[in-house]
Structure formats: C-alpha cells, structure tokens
C-alpha cells in the first residue's frame, strides 16, 4: 500500500468466490485467471489437499483442494467448480498455483474503509489468514491474505514434490 495516497479512499479489486456456505475474496492482483474445471492428474505421495497438477499452456500447475485446506467438508465437483490461478509469493519467489472454488462470484471494488478487521476470537478460520471482512448486505465476505494462506509449510513440500516431478 502506497502511503502517498489516501489509502482509505483507494479502491482495490477483489475476486469473490464461494466455498461451501462461505464466500471468500482474493485480491485481484494475486489472481492470474479463472479456469473451468478440467481433468486433474493425481500426483502420488502428496498431502491430502493436493489435488494434483494440470497442464496450463505448457507449464505444470499444481492444484489445491481448498476445501480440505480450509478444513471444510469435502464435496463432489459441480459444473460451477472452477480453478482460480493465483500468483503467490513464497520465500521471495513468485509461484503460480491453482485453487479449487465451488463457484466464482464476481469482481468487487472496495475501499479499505469498507473492510473491517477480522474478529480475533470466535471464528472458525485462523484470523492470521484473513485480511479482513466485508459486509455485503446480509452476509460477510472473508477477504483472504493469499500469500499467508498458501505460505504454510505444506506448500513447500508441494513445491518440492513438483520439483521432483520436474526432475
């Protein structure tokens, strides 16, 4: 965030998507594109949330099952299930990975004022993963800190696994 601007008035874009009953949002700057669900190649000896890999225009893209990652109940894929291709900073490196979403909702433009701080207690999600919450009419949209969410230790192993696959 640039301090020279009135950060409260600066509009930023977020992509909202649905996972189970909850709606999450991710900063558009972290989103590369949205893909329709396609066949995913399973990779052996990977954590449960690793769905596998897909071929994205010639490069290998690991895909994560966000439901498992977020500790939600696992559900069958539907026609609305999408893969959101994200750009994540991992130990200084920028890597791309796919995250499964039940459905992609819309692109929101929000100012920082509209984003409230996440509650420190009483939430089923780790507040460290959240940037904040946005009240949209009658429900909340949880805005994820994408880098933190996917920066857990497991991802290293996933990166390692993929590297192994490369090798």
């Amino acid at each position: 965030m640039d301090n020279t601007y009135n950060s409260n008035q600066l509009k930023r874009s977020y992509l909202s998507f649905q996972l189970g009953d909850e709606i999450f949002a991710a900063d558009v700057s972290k989103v590369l594109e949205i893909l329709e669900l396609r066949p995913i190649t399973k990779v052996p000896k990977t954590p449960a949330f690793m769905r596998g890999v897909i071929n994205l225009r010639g490069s290998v893209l690991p895909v994560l099952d966000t439901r498992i990652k977020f500790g939600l109940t696992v559900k069958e894929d539907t026609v609305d299930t999408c893969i959101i291709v994200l750009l994540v900073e991992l130990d200084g490196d920028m890597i791309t990975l796919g995250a499964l979403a039940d459905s992609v909702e819309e692109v929101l433009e929000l100012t920082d004022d509209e984003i409230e701080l996440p509650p420190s207690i009483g939430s089923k999600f780790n507040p460290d993963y959240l940037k904040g919450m946005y009240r949209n009419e009658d429900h909340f949209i949880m805005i994820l800190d994408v880098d933190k969410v996917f920066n857990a230790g497991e991802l290293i192993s996933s990166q390692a696994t993929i590297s192994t696959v490369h090798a």
Partner: protein
Amino acid sequence: MFSFNDLNIGRKLLSGFLLVIAILVIVGGIGFISLRNVAGSFRAVSENNLPSIQRVYELEVYLEKLNKGYNNLLQIGLNREERDKIVKEIEQNRASYIRAMNAYDAMSKTSEEQRYWDTFVEELNQYAEANRQIDRAHAEVLRIDVLNPLRLNRDLELFMKDHYALQVRTSNAIQALDYFDGGDDHTACNFGHWLPEFKTENQAISANFMGMRNDHQQFHAAVGKIKNHIRQGNRNAANDVYLHEMIPTADKVFSYFGLANNEAEKVVQLVGEMNHLVGVVGNQHYQKSVDALNNVIKLNREMAEEETLAGARIVSSSNFMLIAGIVLGAFIAFFLANIISKAITGGIQKGVEFAEVISNGDLTQNIDKKYTNQKDEIGQLARALQDMVDRLRDIIGNVIAGSDNIAAASQQMSSVAQQMSQGSSEQASSAEEVSSSMEEMAANIQQNTEYARETEKIAKAAESGITEGSKTTNQAADAMKQIAEKISIIGEISRQTNILALNAAVEAARAGEHGKGFAVVAAEVRKLAERSQVAANEIDKLSKYGVDISETAGKKLAEIVPEIQKTA
C-alpha cells in the same frame, strides 16, 4: 326387508313353477277326493245295496218254493215216492234259503234295515215252528202210511156193505131155503180182490189185515157151508152155521174194518191239522216274513237310489270345484308368469336403455336406486353398469385434469419463454443462439399446445381419442425433453460466458485505471450471462415439470386405454 325382487332369476322361476305345481296338486287332489267319494257311493251301492237285494230276492224265492212245497204236501192221493220227492225239495229249499239268509245276515245293515230284518227273523221262526209241526204231522202220516184215507174209508165202507149184504142175503136164503150162487169164495168178493194188492208200512194195519184174513176166509167158508145145508134142505143146520160161525166171524171182520177205519180217520185228522198249519198259521207267518223281506228290499232300493243321488251330487259339486280350481289356478299362473317376466325383462330393459345412453356418450345418467338395490342378477347388472359409468366419469375427469395441467404448464412455459426472449435479445453473441433455441422451443411449445388442445378435444370425444392423446402426450414429453437438452446447452454457454466475463473483469482490474471501461462491459456481459443462466435453469425446471406431467398423463392414458377398450 325381504322382497321378491331380491330373489335371483332361477329362484323366481322356481318359485313360480312351484306355485303352479301346488295349484296342480290342489286341483288334482280335489278331483281325486271327489272321485274317491263317488267311488265310495258306487261301492256302497254295488257292494251293499245290490247284493242285499239279490240275497233277499233269493231268500224270497226259496221261501216261496218252500211254502209251495208244504202246500203240495197237503194234496191227498200222493204216493210215498211223490211225497218223499216233495220233502226232499223242501229240504233243499230250506238249505238254500238258510244259505241266502246267512249271506244276507253277514252284510252290513242300517238300523231300519236291521229292524225289518229282526221282524222277518221273528216271523220266520214262527213260520219254521209251524213247519216243524207240519213235518211232525207229515211224519206221523207217513208212519201211519195211509196215504189216501178217504179212499180207504170208502173201500172199507164198500167191503162192510158187501159183507152186510151177503149176511142179509144168506139170512134170507136160510129162511126161504133158497139156494144162491156165489158168496162162498173169499177171494171173489171186493175185499178179496183188494186185499192182496193192499200194502202198507203200518204194522198195526198189516197185523190187522193178516188177522182179518182168517176170519174173512171163515166167513166165506161159513157161507159155503150154509149153501150146502140149504141145498140139502137142512134149514136148522144152516141156521146153526149162520148163528155160530157166520155172525161171529162177520163181527170180527167188521171190527177189523173199524180198526182200519180208525187209522184212516187219524190220518184225515192229521191232514186237517196240516191244512190248518199250512193254510192258516204258516201262511200267516210266511206272508208277514215276506212282507218284512219286501220292506228290506224296498229299503235297500231306496238306499241305493239315495247313494246314487249322493254320487251324482258329489260329481256335480266336485265338477264345480274342479272347474273353479282350474280357472283359479290358470288365473294365478297367468298372474305369476306376468309378474316374473316383468321382474326379469323390466330390469334388463332398463339395463339395455342405460347401456344405450352410455354408448351415446351421456355419462351424467345414473341408474334408479330401485334397481341397484335389488339383490338378483338384475341388481348385479345395474350395479355393474353404475360402476362402469362411475369409473368412466373418473377416467374422463382425470384426462381433463391432466390436459388442464398440460395447458397450464404450457402457458407458464410460454410466459417464461417470452421473458427469456427479452433477456436474450439483449445478449450479444449468445443471444442469437438463445433466440434460435427460443424459436425452436416456441414452435415446440406451440405444437405442444396444439397437441394438448387436440388431446383435450379427443379426450372429450372419449375412447377412440384416448390412444391418440397418449401418443400426443408422449410426443409432448419428447419435445420437452428436447427443450431441456437445448436449454442445457444455453446454460453451458451462459456459464462459460460468465467465466469469460469474470476473467475479463479480473484482467480489467489488473489493468487498473486503463481497464475500467472494459471492466464495466465485462460486468454487464457477466450479468447478462447470469440472467440467461437463471432463465435457462427455470426453463429446464419447467420442462422437467412438463415432462413429468406428460409422462404421468401418458401413463394414466395408457392405463385408461385398456379400460376404455373394455367398456367400448
């Protein structure tokens, strides 16, 4: 409550025939009893009255013969054989009349008849008593064996006269010493001629005449001696013979004659007695008994006439009863036949009329409760027809309801389609495809509506149209399935469009200020895509609903078809 209508047809017929049989039995019974009464009358006449008359007639005839026999016995001058013959006849007639009497006695009699009969028996006993006396007298006559006492008397008188005359002549000749011829031969005189021929069973008379023969010979021998003395002129000697020989023998002979005469007199007395018995006592009782018999005959004849009249009366009365029974029976049988045939044909007629009304397509009619409540076959038929009509009404109602459902669904679809076509016209590239799909769908819906209307019409026209309707609903279902498929394509396109729009929005957001205009367009496109997807989902839902309804209608129609075919 039990009703004659509740009996089944077989029982109705059976009860009718049983009643007719009962009437037949009653009429036959009347005839049979009447005939038996008549037969009883005839039997009374033929077994009682007529034989009674016959027996009594026989009795009378034998009695008359008997009486005649006794009258015959009274004749003088009958010899022993003739009398024996008559007595034998009398015995035969007596046996015969006793037989007839016993035969009659064994027969049943009325009290009056019995009274006459008792009178007869009383008189007959007295008559028999008289006859027994006659028999005794006759037996005495036979024992005396002087069957013609008058002639014997006359003969004896003649012999006495002869011998008196001879005695007188001899006396005169002795006085005049005048010789005379004859008189000395005891066989030459009338008695001498008569004696050898005379025979009798009477011992007294026989002994009498045997004793007399000697004296008679001596008498005539004395005449011979006197004649010799006269010829010699010896008057004294002659007189002596005359006094000592002729007179005593003459007295002896005359006394013998007297004895015989006494026997003859006895017979005459007996015959007189018999005359009295036969002519007065016997005849009197005979007449009285015959009168009693005549009364019996008269009574029997009257009874026979009475029985015959009674028979005639029974015949006429039973004739009347038989005719009345036949007429009444025929009337009842006719009445029964009328009722039973009406009970059967009336209900069937009603059933046929009702079936014709149904076949003309009028299902609003109901069968009269009177018939459906009946428990016989007519009632079963009426109930079956009523059930059939009720079922048909249900079926047609279902068909109409199904058709209405289809029409409603179609209308709903058509409105949704209009809504969608509005949305589609705003959509750029996908709009054309949507529009073309919409047209196709509209056409299908139009067709569907038409089919539905046709189905409704055909359904209303009943049986024949049902099959067609079923087919049509199936087609409608197919068409709607096609719609559903097409709609899913639209849905797919909308979804893809949505993702494209989102990607565009993401790209625009990433471009920052420069991408702002593009972001607006992308948002609009996304909105359109979302709306078309919503519309597509709604259409999909409605089509599935339509398909369900059509399939249900098709199934129902398919179920109806065999039932309609059954009723047709």
